[in-house]
């Protein structure tokens, strides 16, 4: 009896410490973001005097007002990022689904060869130098909005996941559609796609975040300020205080560099964080799908 009680107490304590520990590392995961948000609402002078803090000493929206005072660049960059994300994700998802559908059909004769053709690119690649030279000089992807879209269109790993998912659509269903006279395109759009919305949603969201978060393609291919996506614009602001001074938006009286940086970080993360909160459930399912393929 007493032993039993002791066990129960021990179990309770164990449970509580598990919760405490998990809560602590969960907090550690979001803490840096809190620091960024807090700093963006702080007074520039407070940061200079007391350093970055998790709670603003004096709450102010000055940094945001400042960013939006002459908002040409930021609106331009939001536009670029939105365009790149929307068109890129849509085209990418369509292209990858199409080839994944072909690969998922056992009746397709060259299935093995085509699979290898796709997956070999995961194992071996030419690396940055030939890729960069070919894209800029051969394909003319320099200071061109499509340089931010086209190089990410096909992700072999996502093709693999989609193929695995499409393969679960029973062949009999497709045969029935074929007997009714539907062509492959029609079957793809009207049978396979609607049956695969969870997989399409997962991969689509991965694409959205890949495009939205990207700064690498801009770092390589974009010099023109009009074509800077949001993340890259933030990168230039973060690394280069002079770039801010030269920027038309910094002609005001006070130049709150530290808080403006953080406000920009919040503005650039905002949409991605929102997407994450809305659909993280799908992501978790998507990873599980891949892990246990």
């Amino acid at each position, binding site marked *: 009896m007493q032993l039993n009680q002791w066990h129960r107490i021990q179990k309770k304590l164990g449970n509580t410490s598990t919760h405490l520990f998990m809560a602590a590392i969960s907090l550690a995961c979001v803490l840096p973001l809190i620091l960024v948000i807090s700093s963006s609402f702080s007074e520039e002078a407070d940061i200079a005097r007391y350093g970055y803090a998790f709670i603003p000493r004096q709450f102010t929206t000055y940094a945001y007002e400042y960013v939006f005072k002459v908002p040409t660049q930021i609106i331009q960059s939001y536009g670029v990022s939105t365009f790149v994300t929307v068109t890129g994700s849509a085209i990418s998802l369509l292209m*990858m689904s199409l080839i994944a559908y072909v690969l998922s059909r056992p009746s397709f004769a060259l299935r093995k060869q085509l699979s290898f053709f796709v997956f070999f690119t995961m194992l071996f690649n030419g690396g940055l*130098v030939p890729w960069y030279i070919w894209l800029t000089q051969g394909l003319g992807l320099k200071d061109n909005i499509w340089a931010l879209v086209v190089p990410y269109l096909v992700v072999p790993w996502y093709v693999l996941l989609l193929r695995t998912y499409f393969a679960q659509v029973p062949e009999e269903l497709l045969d029935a559609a074929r007997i009714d006279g539907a062509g492959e395109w029609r079957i793809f759009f009207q049978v396979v796609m609607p049956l695969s919305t969870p997989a399409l949603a997962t991969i689509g969201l991965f694409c959205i975040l890949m495009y939205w978060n990207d700064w690498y393609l801009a770092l390589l291919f974009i010099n023109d300020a009009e074509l800077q996506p949001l993340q890259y614009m933030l990168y230039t602001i973060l690394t280069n205080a002079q770039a801010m001074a030269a920027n038309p938006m910094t002609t005001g009286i006070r130049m709150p560099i530290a808080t403006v940086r*953080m406000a920009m970080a919040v503005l650039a993360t905002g949409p991605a964080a929102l997407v994450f909160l809305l659909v993280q459930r799908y992501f*978790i399912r998507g990873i599980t799908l891949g892990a246990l393929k």
Partner: protein
Amino acid sequence: MAAPAVIWLVLFSYIPMGGLLIAFKDYRNNLGFLGSQWVGWRNFTYLFATEAARQITFNTLFMNALFILTTLVASLGVAILLYQIQHHFFARFYQSALFFPYFISYVIVSAFVFAFLSTSDGVINRLFASVGREPVEWYSRPEYWPAILTLINLWKGVGFWSIVYFAGILAINPEFFEAARVDGATGWQVTLHITLPLLMPLIIINLLLSIGRIFYADFGLFYQVTRNQGLLYKTTNVIDTYVFRSLKTTGDIGMASAAGFYQAVIGFLLVLGSNLLVRKIDKEKALF
């Protein structure tokens, strides 16, 4: 139907593969790829005569090994703890919080790392000042960066990998856990004798796949988070940042392409080798 993706793969993957041969040329912009002179192994002789070749090889391997080990241990631990949490709401909540950093771009990461490590205003140095310690100039002290980058890599990746292992634990037949509980096994005993042995295939496969990628570094982490500080190169210069800087900053295409070729070939051999081992364990999990 597959044509658009096939054309894309030819243009963006296969043609650049052929372009690897550029490492054997004295590439000139005005002459182009075909017009430039063949120079044999000269670019490689130059590259491996430099201190940088040893440095980037060591840093890439060492840092990736650190990342692989720490991420494995931490994400296994978190997955096991997550499994013990019966309350559905909390399990979900912790998962989401831990997963969140995975979706933050390295530009943002670099912003808040700066807020922590800035010499004059950073959280860490202010903390040091409040307990009477001297401030540290983090961005000019390379010796601290292996630890800093490991921590950031962990922060970013542990959510993803713990979900992978959590899914692995969920796939274990619950009767095993039930039987152990009836027999009065403690949490540690269950972990050591049931959870870990049954997760072993998944762990080994993930390890091998990571080792297959050990010659490739995370460019964003090493370039953005270090703010591309030259003083930190000693511990933070990896193959990917070296190739990038040689190409874009110093414009030394010979060195850049030789290092890129070196990475592509060794990386390929490592992937092949690890995949061969994965195949032996579980054919289903092999990449090919």
